[in-house]
């Protein structure tokens, strides 16, 4: 199998500098069929084996469905990287600029918004942290799948949530942009059990409310407050599930009676 190659840091620094300092750079991200790498650019090898052909990623009118399908495709293409590998911005910047250049341009077509937009979606948001990997056009897809694929395989206490669809929770996570943001940009979203239980409850109550984004936002805020005084992760799994479910049910009910 071929191996994934990556752009060296020096080359990426030049590309980033170009975005930050040259107003013409955004034309490349708007109009070019491929990123113009210098002729003497030398790629670095990695240990990541990839299929001979990258998947065709979908870009249409149903972003929620397409994002989920694309997340599964990217995850299956790259495989289960370890977390340190997957936190390396060189990998994602390379995939955004070379392998999936066309997809990135179509999915994020507003490069004329400025350097911040390009840096977020083609590179990595400056400062790192929880939001950084969530923004890159490709890393967001891989991380979404990696954090949600068959959680019952990693935590036996979640076996009652087992589904024939190994990516059931990937689809829930990407079903609303607000859920994706609320889960991946909050610290609690880094815990497998809490993340899965929360997604399961949101999935159950989303069809019962008219404003799904609002439900996710309210839950996120209340959960943050609750976690300050009560460590849900220290509770027996069923108790954690009951508590999260009650929280979501109450917020859904309040929204419907308001």
């Amino acid at each position: 199998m071929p191996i994934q190659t990556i752009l060296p840091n020096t080359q990426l620094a030049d590309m980033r500098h170009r975005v930050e300092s040259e107003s013409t750079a955004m034309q490349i991200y708007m109009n070019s069929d491929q990123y113009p790498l210098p002729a003497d650019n030398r790629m670095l090898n990695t240990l990541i084996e990839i299929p001979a052909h990258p998947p065709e990623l979908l870009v249409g009118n149903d972003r929620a469905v397409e994002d989920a399908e694309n997340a599964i495709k990217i995850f299956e293409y790259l495989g289960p990287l370890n977390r340190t590998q997957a936190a390396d911005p060189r990998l994602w910047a390379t995939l955004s600029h070379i392998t999936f250049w066309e997809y990135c341009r179509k999915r994020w077509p507003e490069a004329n918004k400025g350097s911040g937009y390009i840096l977020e979606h083609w590179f990595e948001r400056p400062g790192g942290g929880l939001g950084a990997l969530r923004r890159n056009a490709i890393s967001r897809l891989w991380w979404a799948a990696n954090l949600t694929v068959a959680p019952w395989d990693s935590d036996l206490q979640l076996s009652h949530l087992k589904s024939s669809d190994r990516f059931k929770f990937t689809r829930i996570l990407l079903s609303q942009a607000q859920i994706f943001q609320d889960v991946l940009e909050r610290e609690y979203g880094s815990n497998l059990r809490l993340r899965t239980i929360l997604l399961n409850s949101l999935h159950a109550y989303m069809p019962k409310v008219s404003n799904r984004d609002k439900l996710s936002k309210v839950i996120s805020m209340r959960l943050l407050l609750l976690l300050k005084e009560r460590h849900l992760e220290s509770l027996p799994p069923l108790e954690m599930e009951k508590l999260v479910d009650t929280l979501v049910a109450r917020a859904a009910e309040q929204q419907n009676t308001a």
Partner: protein
Amino acid sequence: MASNKISYPHPVLGNGDDISVGEISPTVAYKISDEAIHLTFENLTTYHSEIDQMLEKGDAVWHLRIQCSRTYMRENFSANNSTFDIRLKGEDYEGIVDVDITVVAKKDIPDYHPKGLHDDYEEENFQLCVGEVIGIAPTFKFLVDKVYDPLKAPVSSLVRITQGEHDCGPFTLTLDDDLIIVRLSKSDWNEYAGIRDRVPTIIHSAIVVPALAEAILHINEHKDSLWGGRLNDLLQANEISVDAPLAAAQEILASPITRTFNEVNATLDNGEI
């Protein structure tokens, strides 16, 4: 170390002046290698007789939370004793790692009224639910900065290839150093310098595999060395047996021979040779 002061619905030891008796000031020692992170918690005590008694009886428990924003990792551990060891997989952490140490209720407590309460609380009793915070320690942080390139095998954290003093002939191996030192003859070094970044998997197969296998064969004599500790962590973390050193070396380097064939084939297909 950062101190805490937030508003809880009940008094919390370590939160400002909520409770004047007792103190939570554990020590956390870190041993970080690319392969594993060892955390040792000592002095897990509150110096508050009632809360310590709750910990002893199992009515409360130490809750240790390890969080790494960079890798979306958040693990939780429970401890009952005054010392506690945690071993984390090195590959799961990168960058700043936060360690939160708290005491939480292990069962519902209907009439919580610890001694030393601030006067503002007067004679009030509090009802605590399981999981609610009873005490907090200052937050600890540490930095995990990988020595090796995470997208490559962890070779550079174990093996260093240098120029030897001999003009030609086979490479030599030194294990009595921080890293496994491979010394190439001067003529081989010149060749190596020109290709090491272009064909890394071939270098793995030709030089690092035998060097690592030899090192694994002698690992018990070098467990205290830097490379010995790292290699031992790596072997344990991946449950690799040292009984077959050559196979172990290949496993650590993630099938270097297969990758070499792939690399050579790809290079030949591209007409670069």
